[in-house]
């Protein structure tokens, strides 16, 4: 019997299927953006050009400056984490379990630190509390007739304070959701058995939320260890370095010399090891520290009556939140309208001139807005495509080594931004195939894609796992090719998740500093870099004006996302 399909298909079978092409593409992409930079850091650290060399690494380890940076990093991270945890748990309990009024308003305030980049917050704190020049310091000194500034933010203590107020919402978020998901009968039965309120908190509530507390704690620890913005904004002028700022400093000092770059690479490895230990701890806790008693379903817990303590606690909370959330923003806004930094905020000192100047007189700023928009949009789009493809390959094609792909895609997210940037510089300054992206906008784009790829991967894979394989198979049996099935069924079903993935990348790119401060060139400054440089050049008013615009942009984008991704579950 003749078989028309037979003739048509015999030769075709040799070709690559779409799944295979996508798998190979994912491997190539990840090797390029992840493996090469990581490899180059190790290569530079342990290869002196002719032989394997451990001496340089050892000498970097014992250098006085570096030791100080390590010590600072540790002190800041540990103390900031401890206090951020205390504050976070306190507010989580207050808002999750007590009958304190104005909860909605306070919850809104907690979400603000997530929107403002840390270096902007640090800049604002610097304006308020820097030695004798800070506005709040000056105010306090004149009111109380003090000879010395009450708080000098340009110190390790200052860095710790900013990190605490900036990071405690991490702990708060984790703990409050655990509290909301906890079965209220667990506490109620203890009360019925005759336990006092405090006893219940100490012996029931707290132990049950320990996994949430510790995972929030480690999140703060990791973020603090790899943070660049805060220590560089307030510590640099006083010569206080942490590992990330020290790496950048070494890189800047090197001026491109081989030894200098090698030292920066070596220090990157040190930072990476420190962060990796924290990450391993976190993974261990996430897999071993789960209690089943915390249900996925949201239940209405019994609220604890604060009685007489209610209003004092409310006033305290509002005052605290005002200081840490509202005051920095107000400060930046005020300075942006102030004729010259340091002048009192009187009516005649108010002006729009900085807003006008920043856009008309400053080519760098105009470039930076354009660059940041371009970078955020391109990185968002590339991550959207690559991340969704990765999710499809990992969860639907399931090739051999799928877990490896996933690990590779998530790795840069765990790497400190500084380390990733050093890797990018080493890999893309002509080391491979003579490709040199150094000093161009493309090297920043590559770094952004690597850093934020996992955001899209996470949102797309969560959505893909909801798409049952039979939906795609049904399309195939209805006459759709593999490509048609993807286009007609799978992609439309995960479109909302892909869109929110895009914005999850877009937003952090808009306000990024850590990566771009190492990678920018004369024509490729980003918004973050522009603000940072305006401030370093002493144009603090213009820096503030640009900050206000950045914050507005972020808030507008954020609401746009909420509007686009709002409950669109028509099916």
């Amino acid at each position: 019997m003749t078989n028309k399909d037979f003739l048509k298909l015999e030769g075709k079978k040799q070709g690559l299927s779409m799944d295979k092409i996508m798998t190979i593409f994912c491997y190539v992409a990840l090797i390029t953006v992840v493996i090469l930079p990581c490899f180059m850091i190790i290569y530079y650290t342990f290869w002196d050009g002719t032989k394997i060399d451990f001496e340089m690494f050892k000498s970097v380890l014992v250098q006085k400056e570096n030791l100080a940076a390590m010590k600072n990093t540790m002190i800041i991270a540990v103390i900031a984490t401890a206090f951020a945890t205390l504050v976070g748990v306190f507010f989580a309990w207050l808002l999750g379990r007590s009958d304190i009024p104005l909860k909605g308003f306070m919850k809104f305030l907690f979400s603000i630190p997530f929107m403002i980049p840390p270096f902007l917050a640090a800049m604002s704190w610097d304006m308020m509390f820097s030695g004798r020049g800070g506005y709040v310091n000056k105010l306090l000194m004149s009111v109380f007739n003090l000879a010395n500034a009450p708080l000098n933010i340009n110190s390790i203590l200052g860095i710790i304070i900013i990190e605490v107020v900036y990071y405690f919402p991490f702990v708060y978020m984790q703990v409050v959701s655990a509290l909301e998901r906890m079965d209220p009968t667990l506490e109620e039965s203890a009360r019925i058995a005759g336990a006092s309120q405090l006893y219940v908190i100490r012996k029931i509530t707290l132990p049950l939320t320990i996994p949430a507390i510790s995972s929030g704690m480690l999140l703060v620890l990791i973020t603090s260890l790899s943070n660049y913005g805060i220590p560089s904004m307030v510590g640099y002028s006083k010569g206080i370095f942490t590992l990330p700022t020290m790496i950048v400093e070494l890189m800047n000092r090197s001026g491109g010399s081989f030894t200098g770059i090698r030292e920066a690479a070596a220090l990157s490895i040190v930072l990476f090891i420190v962060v990796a230990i924290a990450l391993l701890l976190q993974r261990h806790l996430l897999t071993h520290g789960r209690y089943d008693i915390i249900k996925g379903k949201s239940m209405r817990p019994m609220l604890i009556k604060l009685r007489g303590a209610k209003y004092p606690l409310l006033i305290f909370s509002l005052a605290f939140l005002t200081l840490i959330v509202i005051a920095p923003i107000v400060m930046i806004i005020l300075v942006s309208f102030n004729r010259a930094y340091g002048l009192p905020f009187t009516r005649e000192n108010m002006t729009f001139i900085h807003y006008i100047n920043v856009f008309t007189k400053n080519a760098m700023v105009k470039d930076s807005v354009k660059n940041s928009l371009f970078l955020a949009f391109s990185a968002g789009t590339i991550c959207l495509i690559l991340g969704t493809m990765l999710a499809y390959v990992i969860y639907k094609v399931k090739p051999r080594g799928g877990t490896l792909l996933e690990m590779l895609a998530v790795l840069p997210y765990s790497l400190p931004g500084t380390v990733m940037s050093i890797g990018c510089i080493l890999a893309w300054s002509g080391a491979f195939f003579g490709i040199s992206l150094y000093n161009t906008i493309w090297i920043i784009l590559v770094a952004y894609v690597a850093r934020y790829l996992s955001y899209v991967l996470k949102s797309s894979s969560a959505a893909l796992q909801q798409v049952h394989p039979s939906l795609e198979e049904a399309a195939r049996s209805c006459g759709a090719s593999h490509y048609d099935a993807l286009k007609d069924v799978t992609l439309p079903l995960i479109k909302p998740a892909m869109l929110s993935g895009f914005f999850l990348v877009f937003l952090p790119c808009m306000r990024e500093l850590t990566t771009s401060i190492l990678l920018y060139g004369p024509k490729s400054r980003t918004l973050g870099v522009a603000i940072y440089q305006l401030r370093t050049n002493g144009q603090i008013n213009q820096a503030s004006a640009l900050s206000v615009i950045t914050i507005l942009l972020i808030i507008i984008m954020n609401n746009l996302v909420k509007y686009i991704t709002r409950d669109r579950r028509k099916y």
Partner: protein
Amino acid sequence: MNKIELKNITVRYGDHTVLENFSLNVEPGQILGIVGPSGCGKTTVVRAICGFLDPQEGTVVINGNVMYDKARRINVTPEKRHLGVVFQDYAVWPHLTVYENTAYPLKKHGMKKDELRPQVEEALRLVNMSNYANYMPSQLSGGQQQRVAIARALTSSQDLLIMDEPITNLDAKLREQMLVEIRLLQEKLGTTIIYITHDQEAAMQLCDKIVIMQPDGSIAQIGTDEEIITHPANRFVFSFVGVSNFLPVKKVDEKLYLDYDEKIFYSDAVPEDWPKGKDIADMGIRPMDIVFDDEAPVKARIVSATFFGNIYSYFIDIAGHEYRVQRITAGNEEDEKYAEGVVTGIRFLSCKYFEREAKK
């Protein structure tokens, strides 16, 4: 000509062999049921037919065209096999309306929007869903979604439908109704249907022919419902198609004894289906085929008696082993006579003999 021919299909997942040398022919214009316990490889068979998996060995021929041949490296993609498939979880696309779902196969076969309208409407009419054309699937009940899935399979192919547990997710009443509707549809269109289920009763009600698969993925028996009930090919089929008792028996000098510690004589005629060359065997018997007879040599004690309206269900004890017995309600003092604790004689009506299974 056979509609579908499967020849020597072998499917392995890693070290686990699901199908080994599996062959099956499907004749045109009938409903063929593939029945077997969960995990026996029924779904693997249809996935191999549809092209959703590539067997390690074997050939798949549909309508005389080779769709898959390992040796000749032929593998026709699923979309070119021209089948209609109904999935267990319906797999109705949630982002398309009922009409769009049903029209999709025609669109993929290259029909214009206005050309395909009559066919889509006809398919929806066949499954009684004409009034729901513009609904989204989330607005429909499970049964309605199932009808959409069938309508979509029909626009894909009126010639050959594959249904993988299509009614398992529906409630009992709806199941009954869907079975009747599938039957009517088949009679109207002459479609060949392969119907996969683990529910042997539904299969017997619906199918012209039934394939019974064993847990190891091999075919135990192919036949009509009557053949399978009256002539089960082996012990597995016997126990799979209904409630069954197995009693150990022994042949001594052409006489049959129940093979307990104490041998109990019950028959002196060795039946034809006694396993050849064996002294011991297992007697398979349905609860209805064990009858109470005070004269019979085998004695049993009634452990429990439950009344179900038209039948009585008993558990009886023979030499320390429990078996199930059913009796049609007689409506007289006979019913009361066999109460719990009573010892009575029992006789075996029709029974089957199978080789003794090794004790597990």
